[in-house]
């Protein structure tokens, strides 16, 4: 703390770290979450402002221009993206953070190896690890984005020798990385490590099914945090270490919580090659009773109008069709007729935990009508009609009954125990897990094919004359 400027930076960093911690704390409770996010943003502003005072910085124009371009891009995407596309937006931003960490590591290595000072083992280890983890997080996030945005197929992509290629890549990265740390591998070796890590990140996420993307994004999120912390060791900056590790640790815990909600182990998500082998078995098995019973919007309206209790099960199909407002209007009409309407929210309905709650809240669905899985499962036997709107895997009874199914053991909504089931679906296509759903062939189930919003609108019109 030789002078005022350095002290100011140090104190700002400490305050910023405290703001991050309180921000995270508040983010984990619904009533304070928004304030928590703003607190963390204040911490960020303080940390970045203080950094600009650093004497190392000689030229400001590239910082100003870069920040401007990045900020405009980030804010534009963040503000214009549909609520339904939030998960992939998080993936995209996470990938950018990963890329930043990797680029900072590489650039700092280039700078250090040009100067006369010897690169210490601590620095070079951090540089190599930061490059690897940042690059893996970058391409991994881009693939996750592609899968959720449906640019890439949501199905697990597999090809021969996949594991062998991944293992070889990992060995090559480790060997080259060690060579760089030992001081003999130069910048060229680090560039190869960078490129191979980019490749590894893509290969790592491609074989994972779209339904598991929330867990994958959470893992990549904590990895980016770790990469940011590693750049802190390289640049001797405690602020980076603290904030990066905070994200790395809380992200890891969040990953565990999420996979618990889906009753899958993290290892199973990453290496399970989910849906590839199980789908054929499941398809063969359900081949016996493959009759699907279709229904019309008029019949649906009548079934709903004369029910005493209706439970709506929203899924990703509702989000895609942006039918949250239509479904709410239909529910209001039903309530006017004296029907008791509830919504059953599976913990991982949609693409991410909490996704459905956010969408339905946007449509002003009263909070007390949203029931969680444990609350609602006991009520299904007394429910007259269950309306499944674009949900698939979370209502698949195979998860409960069929030990051969790849999703066996995942907690589901027991909608097959209700008196009548109406499923709104675009087609007989598979859910994100890529497996067949016995519910659709159930004798109590009626299928209403078509775009969810349009179907619901038509049901609403038919309801008026019912």
């Amino acid at each position: 703390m030789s002078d005022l400027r350095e002290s100011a930076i140090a104190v700002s960093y400490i305050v910023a770290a405290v703001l991050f911690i309180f921000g995270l704390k508040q983010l984990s409770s619904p009533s304070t979450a928004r304030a928590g996010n703003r607190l963390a943003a204040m911490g960020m502003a303080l940390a970045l402002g203080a950094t600009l005072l650093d004497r190392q910085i000689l030229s400001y124009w590239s910082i100003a221009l870069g920040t401007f371009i990045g900020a405009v891009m980030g804010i534009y995407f963040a503000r214009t993206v549909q609520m339904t596309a939030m998960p992939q937006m998080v993936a995209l931003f996470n990938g950018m953070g990963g890329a930043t960490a990797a680029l900072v590591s590489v650039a700092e290595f280039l700078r250090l190896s040009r100067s006369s000072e010897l690169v210490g083992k601590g620095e070079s280890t951090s540089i190599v690890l930061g490059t690897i983890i940042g690059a893996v997080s970058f391409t991994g996030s881009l693939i996750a984005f592609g899968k959720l945005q449906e640019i890439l197929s949501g199905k697990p992509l597999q090809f021969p020798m996949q594991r062998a290629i991944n293992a070889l890549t990992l060995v090559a990265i480790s060997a080259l990385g060690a060579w760089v740390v030992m001081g003999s591998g130069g910048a060229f070796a680090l560039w190869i490590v960078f490129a191979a890590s980019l490749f590894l990140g893509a290969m790592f996420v491609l074989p994972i099914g779209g339904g598991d993307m929330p867990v994958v994004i959470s893992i990549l999120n904590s990895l980016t945090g770790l990469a940011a912390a590693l750049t802190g060791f390289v640049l001797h900056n405690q602020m980076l270490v603290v904030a990066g590790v905070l994200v790395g640790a809380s992200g890891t815990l969040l990953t565990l919580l999420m996979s618990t909600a889906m009753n899958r182990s993290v290892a199973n998500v990453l290496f399970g090659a989910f849906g590839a082998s199980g789908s054929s078995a499941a398809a063969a098995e359900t081949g016996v009773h493959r009759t699907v019973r279709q229904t019309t919007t008029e019949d649906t309206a009548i079934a709903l109008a004369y029910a005493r209790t209706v439970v709506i099960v929203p899924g990703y199909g509702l989000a895609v069709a942006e039918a949250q407002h239509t479904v709410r209007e239909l529910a209001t009409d039903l309530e006017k007729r004296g029907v008791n309407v509830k919504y059953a929210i599976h913990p991982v309905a949609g693409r991410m935990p909490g996704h459905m709650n956010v969408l339905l809240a946007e449509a002003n669905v009263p909070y007390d009508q949203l029931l969680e899985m444990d609350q609602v499962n006991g009520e299904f036997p007394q429910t007259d009609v269950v309306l499944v709107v674009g949900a698939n895997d979370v209502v698949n009874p195979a998860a409960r009954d069929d030990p051969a199914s790849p999703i066996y053991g995942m907690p589901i909504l027991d909608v097959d125990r209700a008196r009548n089931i109406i499923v709104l679906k675009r087609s007989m296509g598979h859910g994100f897990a890529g497996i067949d759903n016995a519910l659709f062939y159930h004798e109590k189930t009626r299928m209403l094919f078509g775009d969810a919003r349009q179907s619901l609108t038509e049901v609403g019109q038919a309801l008026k004359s019912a």
Partner: protein
Amino acid sequence: MSQELILGIYVFIMAIFVGFEVIARVPSVLHTPLMSGTNAIHGIVVLGAMLVAGSADTTLVHALGFIAVVFGAANVFGGFVVTDRMLEMFRKRDAAKEAEEKKNV
């Protein structure tokens, strides 16, 4: 090992405990916003990018630093804004509920 590295490792380990402790009891409704919020916080790495870009002595390092600043800034600004938009929905819900209650009264 240098004194500074040891200090850094201390900070690293302590921060792990804080990170675990601080979100230990989060309801599943908040998993996505919390992930998004932490996603914005690791955008702090833009700070490293600023230091690299600002002190670059070759064109290559300067270019790498510049790209890193762009990506990092997108991570920070986009991350906080997208989280805020998600959480806005929770506020709306309370407002909607209040409006409903008023109507009933």
